[in-house]
């Protein structure tokens, strides 16, 4: 008998997945060569599942800023900002984020997960109502639990369902907090934000948008879905991350709320965590400036996303409703998903195996994310592998594409 015995239900499925080949939840890279290439077991693979949307992890300016900061400020802050103080970089990054979003205030967290955990649990508490899209990220669900608020889910991307559930709350709908994501991390689909914002306004609720996967990806200036949908004025809070388009780690919350500073003393995931090391802050700040100044990255990302999504769709794979930097291929069952994932890896393509309950509608997925740093040739290679394997395993009826 051990404390972990309660989790033994996962043992057989996990062993089954491991027995099929590599362990999809514990992939070990021997080296990372670039934003799009890594070494696995002595073989070079194309990285197609790393959320490195703008490909900035090896940007020379970001690396230089990071190296300078580590020399000048040391390797870590060794504590929270509450106890150990704020370094110049933390404050500069918060100022830069607030200005990027055109908001009064910004607050930096140590991870994107903690930005949701600390932001949401600081905004709502016992007696408040928190209204979540059913397909929300785990960090939003965990924030909901930490907040002790009354949590109501609405059907994914369904503004009418949101409206119905808010109406059911009667007087309590006013002042509730609605949380949605810009781009959903599994299928890559986008929230109908304009309609959601209209419901929010009618019901007198607040709206928080998690732009983790849409920052640097959507909008003329790369501010995300709120910008792209033209509803920034109706969005009260924006959460985001540094671990995707900005190529590092960390998260943030921005808002115009005049009492924003109080969050710094009530948000436990902010107060009781060591703050980000100066090197991370420095590369993030540099990446943010690049994101603001260079829209060509976003255009390349868009073209790459379209190439992959169209290619897979035209072959006959079941993909999401529209092109997106996240393209998920729906697999008929888990056994096939695991087989395909291993075969893709053996053929030099690394992406994410996603299985229920982490996926919507209980469907196993092969989840890919493209980068601005991918070359059209790399994506063509990926498509060829998908086509060859799809035919080998009977997922595709016949060759539909002329081979390149």
């Amino acid at each position, binding site marked *: 008998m051990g404390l972990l015995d309660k989790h033994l239900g996962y043992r057989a499925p996990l062993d089954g997945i491991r027995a099929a080949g590599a362990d999809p939840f514990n992939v070990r890279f021997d080296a990372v060569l670039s934003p799009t290439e890594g070494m696995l077991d002595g073989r070079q693979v194309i990285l197609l599942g790393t959320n490195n949307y703008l490909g900035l992890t090896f940007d020379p300016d970001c690396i230089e800023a990071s190296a300078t900061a580590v020399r000048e400020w040391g390797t870590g802050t060794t504590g929270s900002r509450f106890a150990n103080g704020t370094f110049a970089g933390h404050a500069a990054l918060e100022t830069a984020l607030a200005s990027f979003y055109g908001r009064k205030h910004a607050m930096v967290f140590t991870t994107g997960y903690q930005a949701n955990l600390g932001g949401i649990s600081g905004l709502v508490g016992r007696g408040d109502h928190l209204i979540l899209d059913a397909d929300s990220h785990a960090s939003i669900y965990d924030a909901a639990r930490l907040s002790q608020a009354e949590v109501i889910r609405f059907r994914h991307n369904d503004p009418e369902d949101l409206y119905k559930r808010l109406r*059911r709350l009667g007087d309590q709908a006013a002042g509730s907090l609605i949380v949605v994501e810009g781009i959903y991390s599994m299928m890559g689909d986008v929230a109908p934000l304009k309609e959601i914002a209209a419901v929010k306004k009618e019901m007198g609720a607040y709206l928080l948008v998690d732009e983790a996967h849409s920052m640097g990806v959507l909008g003329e200036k790369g501010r995300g879905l709120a910008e792209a949908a033209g509803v920034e004025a109706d969005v009260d809070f924006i959460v985001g991350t540094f671990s995707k388009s900005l190529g590092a780690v960390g998260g943030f919350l921005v808002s115009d709320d005049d009492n924003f500073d109080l969050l710094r003393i009530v948000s436990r995931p902010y107060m009781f965590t060591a703050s980000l090391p100066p090197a991370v802050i420095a590369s993030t700040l540099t990446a943010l400036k690049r994101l603001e100044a260079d829209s060509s990255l976003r255009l390349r990302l868009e073209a790459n996303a379209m190439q992959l999504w169209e290619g897979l769709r035209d072959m006959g794979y079941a993909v999401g409703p529209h092109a997106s930097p996240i393209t998920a291929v729906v697999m008929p069952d888990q056994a096939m998903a695991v087989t395909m994932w291993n075969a893709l890896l053996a053929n030099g393509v690394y992406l994410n195996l996603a299985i229920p309950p982490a996926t919507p509608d*209980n469907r196993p997925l092969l989840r890919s994310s493209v980068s601005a740093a991918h070359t059209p040739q790399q994506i063509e290679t990926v498509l060829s592998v998908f086509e060859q394997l799809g035919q080998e395993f009977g997922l595709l009826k016949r060759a539909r594409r002329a081979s390149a």
Partner: protein
Amino acid sequence: MVELATDLTVREVARAAETVLGRTVQVTHATDIARDLAVDSLALMNIVMELEDRFDLSIPLDRLATVQTVGDLSELINKLRVKA
């Protein structure tokens, strides 16, 4: 009468579970939702969403902390219906 209302609610829980799970289920008050119905946390939340619509009721997720059996869930729904 209370017993009758609970039985009706149990039946609605079974129907909601069948809608979400896509298979028939046999339930009594004592049915353990996770163990006997093999329902994971996500499926349970989806069943609750279905029940909210069937009863035109809000069932906040934090109330599920004490729900283990179908009987627990039925009682919770009946309690919320009285309040509504």
